[in-house]
């Protein structure tokens, strides 16, 4: 059973159940910390295919209360190797790089694999 959190932001990610009851229309992904970034309590997320990497980055910046004054950056990595462009859809990242139905993304506040 998964909890549904709502921080009131209309752009927040809606978490679906962590099984496949969405019929495969949502992409399930695991977020793992890298480069000394803070570890999230919630690691498993689900998003519609058409959402972009940029959407995830913006959401995480707010969720992690990153300092917008200091323009703290957040980097998302696939395969612990490369950073897809912000307008890439999570659907295509999932189609190409998920493993056994799950996509793992690493996030960092510095360029961990720059």
């Amino acid at each position, binding site marked *: 059973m998964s909890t549904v959190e709502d921080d009131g932001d209309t752009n927040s990610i809606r978490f679906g159940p962590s099984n496949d009851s969405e*019929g*495969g*229309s949502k992409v399930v992904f695991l977020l793992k910390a890298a480069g000394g970034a803070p570890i999230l309590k919630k690691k498993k997320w689900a998003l*519609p*295919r*058409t959402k*972009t990497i*940029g959407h995830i980055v913006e959401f995480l910046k707010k969720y992690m209360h990153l300092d917008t004054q200091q323009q703290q950056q957040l980097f998302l990595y*696939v*395969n612990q*190797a*490369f*950073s*897809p*462009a*912000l*307008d*890439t*859809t999570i*659907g*295509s990242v999932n*189609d*190409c*790089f998920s493993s056994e139905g799950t996509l793992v993304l690493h996030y960092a506040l510095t*360029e961990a694999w*720059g």
Partner: protein
Amino acid sequence: MHTSLDDKEITRELWQSRLPICFILSDEDKSKINRSESPEPLYLMLARQSYFPCIIEKLHRYYSTYFKENLNDTTNYVNFANLWLEYESIPLKWHYPIGVLYDLYTSSLSSTSSYLPWQITVHLSKFPESEIIRFLDKESIEAHYMSTVKEADALKHKGQIIGDMQKRDHKQLWNSLLQDKYDGFWNINNKLMSYTENLQYFRYIPFRIYILDKPFIQKLFSPYDIDEEKWMTLNDLLHFVLNHEVQCEQLTNEKKILNTNINDYQVIIHGIQPSLQTPIQWLSEYFSYPDNFLHICLIEKRS
């Protein structure tokens, strides 16, 4: 896969292909100039395989002579960090190769008119934050380029070849692209085009399909069918991609479903329409852009 010396010459021709572009300042920004004359259009011959941020310093230098007085004027301020390019009301994405943008946005126009030089409007204000990402210097476009090369190698070779390369080899790829050095580029790129694990082909083909008003489509596709013992063609790839994409659209209840009939599209890579029977492995080796991806534009034919 039979190839010849002539095939290698194709990569040189693609490397050398250029687009004549005419940059014109937007009317809105023209009105901010204090001088009596407005800037002349700026004409540049740009490599199809390069990126607009690579010439952004040139644009800054050119327009800053006209806006000298505005740089300190708080009422009429011009900040070159807000420079962006537009074609027919479409903000141009900085991180797409120039040739891809040209093929995607001008190919649907009538073929009886000439669309060269390509007329692009330069804006210095009202950066469309929600539509394009800032890539306003060479360092950020270099980071994007290297990330894309790594992604391509992840698909082709599980990242083994790029991972084994020295940092200086990565630098050589980018610097050769910047400095238009074909040999310097291909000395390194040849390694990325080689085979690993006793295969005579890449594990998966790095490609992106561009259709107007849609985000690009990228999927896993193997260039060789082991069971049927045959090489997959461009037609096979498009057939697979369009049908898979429609399945995804149906799952998410999209209103507008993609047309899966390949005959309704012009299939354009580097400004030409290659035969749909071309083996995709060959296209990946000879028709990829310097980022090692095949960027394929699908332009709907007029009904």
